[in-house]
């Protein structure tokens, strides 16, 4: 609105009220009940809807990651591996695929997922062998194991 002098500005009244109201109501048109028509109710609902959508944008990331993890867990259990074993052994074999892509592979490329599971299983067994060590007794006096023959 253009008002050209101070005297006129003091006496001016709102002329675009309709469009200000429509700006809020257009975001409420898909709501249920009177809050999609009545401005007073719509203002509160629209404000709550926007606040909830801003918070949900942060939670969506957490939710999707949990979903991917559930899917990868289900797929790796089909191949006889648990999720922590699968992920840790894949990372130890320097395969850096993220959970989103692993979940997509588990759904659309089952053969590739099976080969990844086999890779993780093999790395797991090599890890167990390395953890066992040589099988000899440790050196030293205090750590010497006393053999008792009956």
């Amino acid at each position, binding site marked *: 609105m253009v008002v050209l002098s101070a005297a006129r500005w003091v006496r001016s009244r709102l002329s675009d009220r309709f469009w200000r109201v429509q700006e809020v109501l257009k975001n409420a048109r898909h709501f249920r009940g009177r809050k999609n028509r009545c401005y007073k109710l719509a203002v509160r609902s629209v404000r709550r809807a*926007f606040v909830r959508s801003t918070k949900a944008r942060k939670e969506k990331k957490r939710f999707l990651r949990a979903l991917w993890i559930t899917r990868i867990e289900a797929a790796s259990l089909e191949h006889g591996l648990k999720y922590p074993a699968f992920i840790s052994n894949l990372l130890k074999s320097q*395969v*850096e695929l993220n959970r989103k892509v692993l979940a997509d*592979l588990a759904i659309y490329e089952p053969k590739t997922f099976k080969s*990844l599971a086999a*890779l993780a299983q093999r790395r797991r067994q090599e890890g167990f062998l390395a953890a066992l060590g040589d099988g000899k007794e440790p050196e030293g006096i205090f750590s010497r194991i006393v053999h008792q023959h009956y």
Partner: protein
Amino acid sequence: VAKTSLTSPPWPEVKLPDPVEEAKYHAAEVVRKVNGLISAGEYGRLFAVVHFASKQWKITSEDLIMIDNILEAECGDRIRMEKVLLVGADDFTLIGRPLLGKDLVRVEATVIEKTESWPKVNVHFWRRHNFQRKKIIANPQTVLRINSIEIYPCLS
């Protein structure tokens, strides 16, 4: 010495194949077969997992990808994606540790459009505290079309 609960480990005993023999088998059989398949061209549609714009994408040819930021390329530029993590076809997969070589895979894409996203509304509101902030964000996006994924038989 008597057998206790700690004499043998709790996981089942597994005999792993001999590493020297396994390396020979791998080099002779597996690599030769896969190289043969690649050079004969007996694969259908290839898919690849590419690391691009700090995200990983599972792509095939004729795919559309939307990147949530600006790329320093004009519309119509051909781009070669270099960080390829995995390439697969129906019968074989090439898993990179973590990346595959640049002489092995070639992924080409074209920039199709550079737009902005739909205007997202950020509202922060504390009730009874007279606190309201409203911000409308339209972040720039780029759309790429993956033209082709090619592999060359240079395994070793």
